[in-house]
């Protein structure tokens, strides 16, 4: 119950800060974060919603693709929301927020420009937390089959008979 109250408080703060500063990517509920447009929602287990939301923003800032929705970044990092991983993530995000306060005078999520957030990430890019998150995203983000169509990648083709009759040499602009 105490945790839930805490979550609710954070919800309001978070809503305010996100709404006024960073464009309201997330609505943070009691143990939930969700897209403002209702396209996705996730129940966080071991992490505070704000911690998870910061992690998602960090993931997007490492590999920013404007055509890729938050849902894909959420999926890419949701594996860290476990009791086993939580201490590492909490320590890492706390460090990230401390750097943000020191360097930019605000929490990471409250910094409006990507370039300012990237400055902070650059200051920690060689540490193990950053490298763990970045390395995990290489497969966590780009190996999601549902993200491939956004990049035009067609994936498995054997079941369609390959491309011999489906445009392996269809280039028309050369």
């Amino acid at each position, binding site marked *: 119950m105490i945790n839930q109250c805490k979550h609710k408080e954070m919800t309001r703060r978070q809503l305010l800060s996100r709404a006024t500063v960073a464009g309201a990517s997330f609505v943070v509920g009691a143990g939930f974060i969700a897209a403002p447009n209702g396209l996705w929602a996730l129940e966080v287990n071991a992490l505070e919603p704000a911690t998870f939301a910061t992690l998602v923003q960090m993931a997007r*800032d*490492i*590999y*920013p*693709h404007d*055509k890729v929705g938050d849902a894909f970044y959420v999926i890419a990092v949701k594996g860290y929301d476990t009791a086993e991983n939580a201490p590492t993530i909490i320590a890492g995000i706390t460090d990230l927020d401390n750097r943000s306060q020191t360097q930019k005078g605000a929490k990471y999520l409250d910094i409006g420009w990507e370039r300012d957030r*990237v400055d902070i*990430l650059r200051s920690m*890019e060689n540490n193990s937390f950053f490298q763990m998150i*970045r390395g995990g995203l*290489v*497969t966590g*983000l*780009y*190996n999601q089959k549902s993200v*491939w169509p956004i*990049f*035009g*990648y*067609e*994936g*498995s*083709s*054997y*079941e369609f*008979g*390959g*491309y*011999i009759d*489906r*445009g*392996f*040499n*269809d*280039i028309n*602009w*050369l």
Partner: protein
Amino acid sequence: MANFELNDDNVVVIIGTGAGGGVLANELAQKGISVVSLEAGGRHLPDDFINDEWDSFGQLAWTDARTTSGDWRVATDFSGLPTWLVKSVGGATQHWAGASLRFQEHEWKTRTVYGQVDGATLLDWPIDATEMDSWYTKAEDKLDVTRTGDRPGLPGNNNYLIFEKGAKALGYKDVHTGRMAINSDDKRDRLMCQQTGFCFQGCKWGAKWSAGYVDIPQGEATGNLEVRTHSHVARILHNAAGKVTGVEYFDKDGNLQMQKARVVCVAGNSIESPRLLLNSASNMFPNGLANSSDQVGRNYMRHMTGSVYAAFEKPVKMWRGTTMAGIIQDESRHDPSRGFVGGYEMETLALGLPFMAAFLDPGAWGREFTTALDAYENMAGMWLVGEDMPQTDNRVTLNTDVTDQFGLPTPNVHFSDHENDILMRNHAYKQGQAVYEAVGATRTFPTPPYPSTHNLGTNRMSDNPEEGVVNKWGQTHDIENLFVSDGSQFTTGAAENPTLTIVALAIRQADHLAREMSAGDL
């Protein structure tokens, strides 16, 4: 399928079933010789292959513990994965692109032709193009190589059409869809290419030649070949006379077994083969088997490699069709006026989105990287592969601090570029970028080498027992019934993809072994 007793000391034991070991096993079996092939991996046939890069990697890749050192970027970006090789019946022939090129005549004699190169251990092969000609023809016929014999070339895909137009705009002449071990018509035993892509993940049509589903089943059908899968060889044994007598291996259940042998042929690729010889050290051979020259593990070569990807205004969809769909050979000549010795080939290459993310610029992040991937659909790509300099300190050694799942010391792979490698790579990057700029590329990406698929030279061939591990037949100088049958025999690497040469050497070695055995000399 044969079934030999562990104490049958009349069998030839072959370690590994790839381009070298798999072909050798079949060739010997066809000649009536009893063969036991020990393969660390399992059996994966075309139906089993997966059109998915990471899932396939999990299925096929050799991911046992290894370590790296040296100044190559792979040691930083992929410190535990120096190679992209395969643990499966068929070895790396399951994964290879299929490019089947003969060495150029001068590449058999680089010490003579290039002269002394500081820091390099160039050496002439004890064989030459004339001797190898008929063996190459046999290999091309076995693999059904396109543009050899009566076999037509493959059609070009989008990635090739861009590459060809750029090459011709630059004035390159020797540009075509390659000599590939991929069927281009319906007249062969195997199906023809369906332009599916995913050549690196194993060809689900079986259109690409692999020892795993071509040579090994052919050998088994003779009744003279037994393949034991999931059998990891730990040590080669010898007697007091200094002849090898058998091998110890961990079977599929992890139990240590001992197979006796009349002859042992090592074909575990250029990392595992020297590792096995070194791990087989004994009181009689304290530095490892066949290592009186101290050359086992040395002169590790991995080809000068790199890639160039390029983004265009409009879609290319490079992943469609044959992964290695064409070649420019104009730069493969030896022409020191370019500032380096030896030459390089330019070959189209495509990666899927997941591997592009992993390999385009390992470790990179932020918008410089992600805007490149945003252009993925509009990308074309090529691989650059050239002759690298053998160096005595580029080598595979045992890392006794790190052991594998069987408790055996792991191989450490140490590699640093020679200055000649760097000069060649920079030249190749420039030419590759020019090819794409000539057809309107808006951005080009000189991409660093991937974990090595071409691993060569760690048991090099020489007539001189002080300079090499094996003689011109792949027979070790120190032990008459111990042979090396894979790319680790390579004296120097040449510019070409090595598989065809490994296959040609294996066919030739089988002929030699059969002759020596029937004469009672082995």
